[in-house]
């Protein structure tokens, strides 16, 4: 015997889905969904960003109180905006990778490899002469070569990870060594000056100073931040990044091309890392084969400090942006405050661990 269902048809609201489906799909006019601003909900949904903003402001206040003469003058901020963007700019696309539940450790080597491609193209175009115009053209071509190299290395990372199916942590440990090794072999481990770039428009464009105060690398950091923010939050690519990182199985069942999404994310890191290589070597007009190797942990720490979860699916660009400036300021601030430089690593560690604990707590409350 079938058990009798003791509920009337009219109660089944799901039925209405059927009816509305047959009559109209995607009706042109739908009532607009608007929610009045609610402070508590705002705090709950943005807890990670507000948390790191709190840490940021708290540290800043501490610095100002402990060393007012340093932190109330604009010079220290120019210094921060000069040195932080070199690694901060890579932390932005790296956030995308971590949200997609992947990892990339090869970006410092990509920085250097991009510069190898840069100087290769510059040297190979020597026949074009060395007037200002032709130098500018050669440097322009060299920049394109560097960016292209970065994107291609990122694409290769992605292909190995997606098509062969090896965890990205493992693959990029390998490619990190490989490309650093390639740099050392191709340059015979030698440093070389890049004085010629100073005569081109690219020098002021990449690392000049606006009004003697605002470094151009800071402007580029802001531009990259805005572009990646838009991609992540307002574009299908970003939607797929979040879905891939949240539940790759669900995303694939529903037809998201998770492989392509991840490959694109790795290409983005490659492209921006090559760009970071350009601005940091332009800044000192010098190439050295170990460039970038000191940035690995700073950059990763900024991403996690900013509240991006290592489990994927959550994270914000703004959080990372604030995270980079926390990381970027501790070094100088420790000394300015009058503490010994030996303390910086201790303070780094302390702030990173405390912030990650804070984020975990906020995430649990937010859910």
């Amino acid at each position: 015997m079938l058990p009798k269902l003791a509920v009337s048809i009219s109660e089944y609201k799901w039925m209405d889905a059927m009816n509305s489906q047959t009559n109209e799909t995607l009706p042109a006019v739908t009532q607009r969904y608007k929610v009045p601003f609610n402070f508590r909900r705002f705090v709950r949904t943005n807890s990670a960003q507000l948390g790191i903003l709190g840490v940021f402001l708290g540290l800043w206040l501490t610095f100002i109180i402990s060393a007012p003469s340093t932190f109330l003058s604009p010079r220290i901020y120019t210094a921060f905006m000069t040195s932080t963007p070199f690694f901060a700019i890579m932390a932005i696309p790296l956030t995308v990778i971590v949200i997609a539940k992947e990892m990339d450790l090869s970006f410092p080597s990509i920085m250097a490899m991009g510069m190898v491609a840069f100087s290769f193209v510059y040297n190979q175009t020597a026949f074009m002469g060395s007037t200002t115009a032709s130098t500018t053209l050669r440097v322009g071509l060299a920049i394109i070569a560097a960016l292209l190299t970065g994107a291609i290395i990122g694409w290769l990372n992605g292909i190995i990870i997606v098509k062969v199916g090896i965890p990205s942590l493992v693959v990029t440990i390998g490619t990190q060594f490989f490309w650093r090794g390639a740099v050392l072999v191709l340059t015979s481990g030698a440093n070389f000056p890049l004085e010629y770039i100073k005569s081109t428009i690219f020098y002021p464009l990449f690392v000049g100073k606006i009004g003697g105060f605002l470094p151009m690398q800071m402007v580029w950091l802001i531009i990259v931040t805005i572009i990646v923010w838009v991609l992540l939050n307002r574009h299908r690519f970003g939607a797929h990044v979040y879905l891939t990182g949240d539940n790759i199985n669900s995303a694939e069942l529903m037809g998201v091309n998770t492989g392509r999404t991840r490959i694109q994310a790795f290409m983005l890191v490659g492209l921006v890392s090559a760009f970071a290589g350009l601005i940091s070597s332009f800044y000192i007009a010098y190439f050295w084969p170990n460039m970038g190797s000191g940035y690995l942990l700073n950059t990763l720490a900024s991403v996690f400090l900013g509240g991006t979860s290592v489990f994927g699916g959550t994270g914000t660009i703004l959080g990372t942006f604030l995270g980079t400036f926390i990381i970027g300021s501790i070094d100088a601030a420790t000394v300015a405050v009058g503490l010994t430089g030996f303390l910086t690593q201790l303070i780094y560690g302390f702030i990173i661990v405390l912030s990650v604990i804070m984020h975990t707590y906020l995430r649990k409350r937010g859910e």
Partner: protein
Amino acid sequence: MEEEYRLELRNVSKSFGEVKALEDIDFKLGRNEIVGLLGDNGAGKSTLIKIITGYHRPTSGEIYFNGQKVDHLTVPKARELGVETVYQERALAELQTLWRNIFLGRELCNSLGFLDIQRMRDETNRLMTQSMGFTSQAIGPDSRVGKYSGGEKQGVAIVRALFFEAEIIVLDEPTMGLSLKEAAKLVNFVKGIKQAGKSAIFIDHNIFHVYDVADRVVVIDRGKVAGEFLTKNIGLNELMDKMVHVAETGSFD
């Protein structure tokens, strides 16, 4: 060609390495028909529907939609052909908001790929209030799906399947984890699919549910079609006896 089927599989086999998950499956789904798939754990039901939804590629065999042969079926292609699926695992992204889940894999965006977020939130809100009957304050287009109850999550998966003009609705173990009342709701919902003139494939462990809603029952055992019955020609007790017999011996005789 009035007699053509909404969906037809011919000689479909699927192997995962050495393991033969499906062997020479012939399967038909008529217009406005609800077919129940029955079979023990590991019989190949989920593999079969994942072939229909384009997630798995068959090792051999042919797939026809409305009499047209379709090669290289992918998930987006199957969805284009009107196949919508409520998966056993629900296929939700639990850390994401409701609107992102409703439009999962089918985001509304312009030709450059930029999302129309306001439209998706508006539509989600409409579906929520008109179709899902969610009135709880905790549930809005911007709330995270991970917080929802089992029934609410299932509601999201179902409404999502219906929103996009589904012609064939595949329900894989939809009553799993639902309360009795929610399961009853669901059974009636499946009946509603038939009333709306659509087709459905319904997989469930609960033979009562399947018998109740299906026009035809296909029994799968060890990767093969063991038999099929029109529910109007067979009694529930008889069907149950046959199922037990199949599970023990692998055939109906």
